[in-house]
């Protein structure tokens, strides 16, 4: 069927901020969809609150609404744009849920908007376990035995019948949020009570445990004519019990006979048909009993998902693109396979390589949180590796993670080496982020593959492959590098060893290993991902590296090449923002006439879409792998400053190897990173900065502290996202933090900075071509100084700073950028206290705020930076005079993942812990701020009881806020000290005791849902104070809370704006 002509405009709903379980894979799929729909001639209207996405680039849609993805806001967009149709299956659970609500409330019908790509009944059958189970029963497909609980008592009764352990799944939550495995009554009670609250339907499924079974995922596509295909099968290395997002997974399925695979295939297609998926992509998950082959369906998602992004990257089949075309009426046989250009998309990709995906965790950021992997996803990112064998791919995946490991454990770097045999073997039964390395260590110490299988339930196929990998490592250990011949290198490489690991095993160093290897002629070959195992010729240059091959498929260079190093796996502190910058660099450099080459290993991103750059190398961002790509492609320039810390760390080594670095020189980067060199530079420029010192041990730190004075900001060098940072108020705190910082970064000294308590912080991003500087934007932080800039809400333009102060910042930025010799982007952080502008730090690279500022100002900073790197001058770029748009405020707010990590402190501090961000746009600062809160909470606080407890410094200012809250209809509850101030100011409030005195019932009140808003401004770093319990409770129960008075003030003004109906929507294209 050809495309539909009866619809002209289509609303696409995005997935909002990056959160655990819903990350930038939806930017990839959404961006693909928008591109395709526009190609097909439709008017595309987009709603997404996440400014760091490629999909919200104004060029990708006809009208781009950076607005909260709530039914209310989407309805406003619909009312304004009157789209003919809405495509909700590409924006994850958020997009889907919003569409369902709009359909159910009649909004879609009222405005004549047709849901395409799915319908509400289908979504319900896919997600409502009861309906789903009925469908499965019709098909004769088994589900695990289970029952629904609407109360803890229900759950106890069902678990009694099934026997422990049982699996708990709250209905309609994202990424399995609130789920878990209960092994006993206590665990059941804990998880169910939490799950009932998280589930919009207050419903929890209690299921027989199929822990330890083999787990599979099928990526399926279907068209309106009924054609169905399996794009990819995925087998989890971690058996059932670990969320698939937290599992190491392998594509294609490795251990199914054809009979079993085809049965699963037929079942998957039948599931889509029975559930009623008319068109689009879905995934279906199965568990298979390892000894009987009994097959049980786990779930299906009637939409594009994280694993469809993975499947697209793993096969070269663009699922989201195809899904968008199918939604507008095409059938699979009418869509051409992009890769071959001649054959149709109605086929099943065949691959001639092995893909391994490994999850990236961030438990170090959430101390106190349980790091056991369960059915509730905790990973913050992932990497994908492509090799010819599982062994090759696993080694590659593990060194792609950027956790400091060089592969499958041969580097001897992990904590596992310090464990006794007993501890080590016992630890294997608990799935954790580190378990794969524990497995390597156990095999190293002589554990058999069989025993590893018994302790972990990992399939024997994988255990044996891993045993071979370790056997090869151990055979090499202690040998001299010069005794290795080409064949020894080939074997090492074939079993997944990196040069860095070979160096450890042979007592050499990575560069010598590389040199020896190349002298012996052991060089990698690059093969191509082409959907067809080379059956048909393809033009797409989507490559991966292997060893021991006869032929490489990289095309000859015919014009200048620019190589862009990506940002690697998403983690806290380095996420989609940097991918956005890399993608923009690719576009800009292509425009400048370069053949662009992307190197990255993150399957969730737009940068690893095969048609983003001229060539894509799906490789780890290590020295070895990047150099191999450099050797194969001979680039004329390498971009290292747009992918965050990952490529930056490589800059020096690449330059030393003679690789041409584009833009700011590695020495300038070092000048900014090196505190002493930078301080000397600031001194020479007569620029103020907080007093600081460097210390190599506690003694030095103490004496420095005496000199500078408390409070102090302590941090190790060379880290991103503020890892290991802290504020200390006294000697005891200093001792604790120095010990911790040393653990994070032992080779680097610790820095101590005067902490400017109460200062206002600002971020400034600028472009510099070596002669001229352009101020891209200034962001004023809403949280007070001391909260990591990545976690702080901020506003462009500054809402409280005078023009004089802003000019001062701009002038300082100019001086610094020119003095550093920046060619491209620079980010400078300022603190303003008592009218004095202090420089906190300068980073001559793309910052996290670049996409936000670009969206807010319409000036594409990353693209311009790339053009500067390619030699253009600012003067020729014709930029607007000032970044601010009159009458518009743009607020960025961070999204915190604390709900995923019960036990971790939810207090904002100098350690970055947010996963993503949203943008609010309005004509006033509070209104814009309010929008960000609604974009995160998907609702606004509607009155009820507000709880206030502020520190002594804030007590004087709290009365004003409290009065406004009362005016907004809140009743107040305050701790004694705060209550005394309020009463003195004539604000009525109830009093509650302090928690540690055992008198308070606030936590209970929060748990009971009696509190709807909380203002709690703590001081100091102790986590045992009252605030700890309060904020934990607030996070767990999803209560809006502010931890600074500035935030509280904005929140209240915003609520006033919302009540006054002042929150309008406007597309970026109109601003």
């Amino acid at each position: 069927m050809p495309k539909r002509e009866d619809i002209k405009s289509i609303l696409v709903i995005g997935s909002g901020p990056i959160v655990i379980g819903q990350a930038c894979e939806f930017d990839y799929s959404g961006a693909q969809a928008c591109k395709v729909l526009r190609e097909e001639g439709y008017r595309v209207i987009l709603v997404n609150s996440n400014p760091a996405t490629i999909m919200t680039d104004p060029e990708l849609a006809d009208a781009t609404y950076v607005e909260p993805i709530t039914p209310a806001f989407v309805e406003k967009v619909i009312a304004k744009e009157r789209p003919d149709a809405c495509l909700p299956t590409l924006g994850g659970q958020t997009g889907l849920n919003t569409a369902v609500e709009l359909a159910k409330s009649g909004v879609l019908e009222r405005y004549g908007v047709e849901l395409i790509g799915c319908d509400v009944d289908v979504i319900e059958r896919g997600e409502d376990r009861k309906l789903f189970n009925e469908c499965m029963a019709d098909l004769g497909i088994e589900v695990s035995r289970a029952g629904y609980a609407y109360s803890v008592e229900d759950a106890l009764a069902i678990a009694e019948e099934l026997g422990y352990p049982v699996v708990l799944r709250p209905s309609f939550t994202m990424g399995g949020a609130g789920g878990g495995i209960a092994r006993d009554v206590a665990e059941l009670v804990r998880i169910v009570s939490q799950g009932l609250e998280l589930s919009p339907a207050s419903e929890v499924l209690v299921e027989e445990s199929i822990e330890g079974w083999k787990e599979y995922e099928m990526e399926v596509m279907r068209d309106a004519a009924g054609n169905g295909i399996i794009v990819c099968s995925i087998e989890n290395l971690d058996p059932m019990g670990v969320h698939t997002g937290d599992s190491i997974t392998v594509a294609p399925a490795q251990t199914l006979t054809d009979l079993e695979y085809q049965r699963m295939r037929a079942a998957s297609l039948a599931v889509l048909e029975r559930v009623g998926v008319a068109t689009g992509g879905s995934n279906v998950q199965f568990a298979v009993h390892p000894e009987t082959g009994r097959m049980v369906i786990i779930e299906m998602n009637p939409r594009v998902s994280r694993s469809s992004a993975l499947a697209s990257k793993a096969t070269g089949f663009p699922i989201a693109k195809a899904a968008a075309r199918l939604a507008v009426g095409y059938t699979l046989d009418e869509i051409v396979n992009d890769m071959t250009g001649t054959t149709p998309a109605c086929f099943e990709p065949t691959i001639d390589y092995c893909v391994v995906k490994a999850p990236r965790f961030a438990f170090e950021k959430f101390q106190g949180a349980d790091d056991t992997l369960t059915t509730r996803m905790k990973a913050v990112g992932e990497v994908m590796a492509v090799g010819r064998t599982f062994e090759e791919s696993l080694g590659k995946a593990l060194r792609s993670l950027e956790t400091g490991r060089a592969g499958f454990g041969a580097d001897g770097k992990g904590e596992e080496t310090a464990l006794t045999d007993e501890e080590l073997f016992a630890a294997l039964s608990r799935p954790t982020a580190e378990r794969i390395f524990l497995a390597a260590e156990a095999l190293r110490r002589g554990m058999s593959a069989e025993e590893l299988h018994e302790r972990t339930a990992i399939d024997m196929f994988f255990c044996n492959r891993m045993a071979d990998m370790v056997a090869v490592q151990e055979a090499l250990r202690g040998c001299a590098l010069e005794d290795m011949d080409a064949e020894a290198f080939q074997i090492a490489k074939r079993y997944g060893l990196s040069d860095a690991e070979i160096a450890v095993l042979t007592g050499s160093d990575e560069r010598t290993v590389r040199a020896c290897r190349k002298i012996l002629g052991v060089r990698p070959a690059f093969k191509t991902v082409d959907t067809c195992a080379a059956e048909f010729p393809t033009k797409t240059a989507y490559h991966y590296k292997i060893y021991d091959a006869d032929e490489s498929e990289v095309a000859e260079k015919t014009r200048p090449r620019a190589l862009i190093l990506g940002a690697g796996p998403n983690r806290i502190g380095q996420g989609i923002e940097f991918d956005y910058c890399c993608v923009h660099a690719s576009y800009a450099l292509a425009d400048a006439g370069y053949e662009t080459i992307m190197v990255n290993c993150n399957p969730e991103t737009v940068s690893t879409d095969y048609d983003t750059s001229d060539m894509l190398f799906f490789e780890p961002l290590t020295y070895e792998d990047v150099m191999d790509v450099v050797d194969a492609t001979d680039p004329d320039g390498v971009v290292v400053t747009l992918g965050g810390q990952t490529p930056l760390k490589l800059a020096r080594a690449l330059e030393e190897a003679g690789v041409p670095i584009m833009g700011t020189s590695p020495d300038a980067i070092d000048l900014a990173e090196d505190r002493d060199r930078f301080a000397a530079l600031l001194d020479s420029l007569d620029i103020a900065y907080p007093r600081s010192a460097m210390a190599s041990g506690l003694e030095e730190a103490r004496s420095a502290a005496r000199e500078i004075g408390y409070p102090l900001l302590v941090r190790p060098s060379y880290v991103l996202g503020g890892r290991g940072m802290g504020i200390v108020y006294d000697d005891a705190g200093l001792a604790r933090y120095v010990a911790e910082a040393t653990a994070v970064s032992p080779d680097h000294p610790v820095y101590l900075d005067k902490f400017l308590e109460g200062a206002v912080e600002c971020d400034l991003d600028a472009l510099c071509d070596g002669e001229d500087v352009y101020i891209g934007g200034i962001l004023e932080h809403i949280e007070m100084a001391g909260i990591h800039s990545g976690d702080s809400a901020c506003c462009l333009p500054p809402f409280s700073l005078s023009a004089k102060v802003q000019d001062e910042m701009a002038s300082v930025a100019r001086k610094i950028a020119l003095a550093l010799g920046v060619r491209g982007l620079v980010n400078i952080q300022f603190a303003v206290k008592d009218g004095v502008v202090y420089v906190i730090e300068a980073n001559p690279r793309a910052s996290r705020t670049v996409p936000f500022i670009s969206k807010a100002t319409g000036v594409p900073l990353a693209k311009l930076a790339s053009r500067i790197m390619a030699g253009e001058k600012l003067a020729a770029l014709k930029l607007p005079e000032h970044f601010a748009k009159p009458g518009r405020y743009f607020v960025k707010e961070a999204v915190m993942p604390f709900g995923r990590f019960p036990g971790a402190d939810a207090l904002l501090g100098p350690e970055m812990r947010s996963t993503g961000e949203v943008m609010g746009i309005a004509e006033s600062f509070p209104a814009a701020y309010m929008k960000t809160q609604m974009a995160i909470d998907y609702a606004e606080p509607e009155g009820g009881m507000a709880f206030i407890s502020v520190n002594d410094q804030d007590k004087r200012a709290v009365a004003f806020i409290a009065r406004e809250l009362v005016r907004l209809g809140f009743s107040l509850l305050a701790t004694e000290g705060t209550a005394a101030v309020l009463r003195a100011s004539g604000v009525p409030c109830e009093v509650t005791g302090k928690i540690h005195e055992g008198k308070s019932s606030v936590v209970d009140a929060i748990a009971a849902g009696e509190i709807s808003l909380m203002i709690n401004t703590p001081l100091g770093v102790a986590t045992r104070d009252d605030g700890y319990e309060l904020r934990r409770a607030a996070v767990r129960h999803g209560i809006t809370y502010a931890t600074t008075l500035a935030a509280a003030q904005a929140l209240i003004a915003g609520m006033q704006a919302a009540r006054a109906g002042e929150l309008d929507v406007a597309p970026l294209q109109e601003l």
Partner: protein
Amino acid sequence: MSKIAEEMRAATSKPAAVPALLVLEDGAVFAGTSCGAPGEAFGEICFNTSLEGYLEIATDPSYAGQIVVLTYPQVGNYGVNADDAQAQHPALRALVVRDLCPTPSSWRSQESLGDYLTREGVVAIEGIDTRALVRHIRDHGAQRAVVSTTDADVASLLEKVRRSPSLVGVNLAADVSCDGAYSYTAANLPASHGFALAAPAEPRFKVVVYHCGVKRSILDGLVASGCELTVVPWDTPAEEVLAMGPDGVFLSNGPGDPEAVGETYRQAEKLLGRVPLFGICLGHQMMAKAAGAEIDKLKFGHHGGNHPVQNLLTGRVEVTAQNHGFCPCFQSLGALVPELSGGATEHVEDLREWGRRGIAPVVANERFGRIRLTHVNLDDGTAEGFAFLDVPAFSVQYHPEAAPGPTDAHYLFTAFARLMEGRDDYLDIDIATDRLSGWKFGSTAEGEVA
């Protein structure tokens, strides 16, 4: 090999390295190590793109005379289960893989693939760049090749391979057929497949199967759809077959050049119109030959489990298993019948055009009347299925039994049963519904606790 390299290799679960060579007649050389029986094997090289199902491929009699390259690099992961084998013994000449797994893992596994190949005397080579080899075959076409573990001299192997017989004109079906007739019924179905497959239908039809190298899964598929089979040798005279009074006759798949299997297509010519006929792969070519079709040799054939085939009657696309190097030419069957071909009077070169027009064209055949093109390959526009309108017969080039591969075309077995019932609408079957009928997904349907 250095001492270190030897120790590293010895530490793995791989057997000791025995060098082996693969040499193509155009001079391309690939070095690897042996992973099957020792020896030297000559054949025509081709590649299969299935991701799994290596045992089904290795035992498919249609691969007689061929050296098969598997494009998926790690092979043997789940071992070997004899019930999955398509014939008693492998018929292919040699197997070429990137990496053979010596430590299989599956609850169904009985032995490793390496042990199986060795036991069956199949020469196999691993450790070569199979992707480079596939690209070479794709660009230079199928050709003769040799795999040797006994001769390390490339020049000598090249000379030998150039002297080895070509497949063209060789009747390989005779080699893989049966010696005499035998019956095959529900009692012969592989018991161990019971966990996944539905119980067979009650037997309703007596069917004679011409065994030109038939895959066991085809026999299983026919039995499952209610046929009691008498399997007869490839050259059994039509009169003998008709004398058995069958409800239908099935012409099986088989290896090699269809031109060389004259005895079979001459029987087909006699059978057409006398009894309902169904043919798969070589059987399809036999029926086309009987109708006087020209047969083309494909550059490197279709071997895999992901080929899209469009059913021109319904527009639906089936993802199919394929294994053939020859293909009948639809245009050669006769002139178009305009009133049954959407008014078209001229043949089109690319048969996919019919799919775009939504027409299943019909030709007037000199011998058997009207023949309809029912199926077309969407990758390259080759003919994939014919239905005879004036005699009860139809055939497909691809493999509805799959094994290995997707079972979308399972409905063709059902269609054969309908044809034997005398229904005109025998091909009018919803593939999605039919696809489910052969499977058993679970032991219990009810999962919910009250």
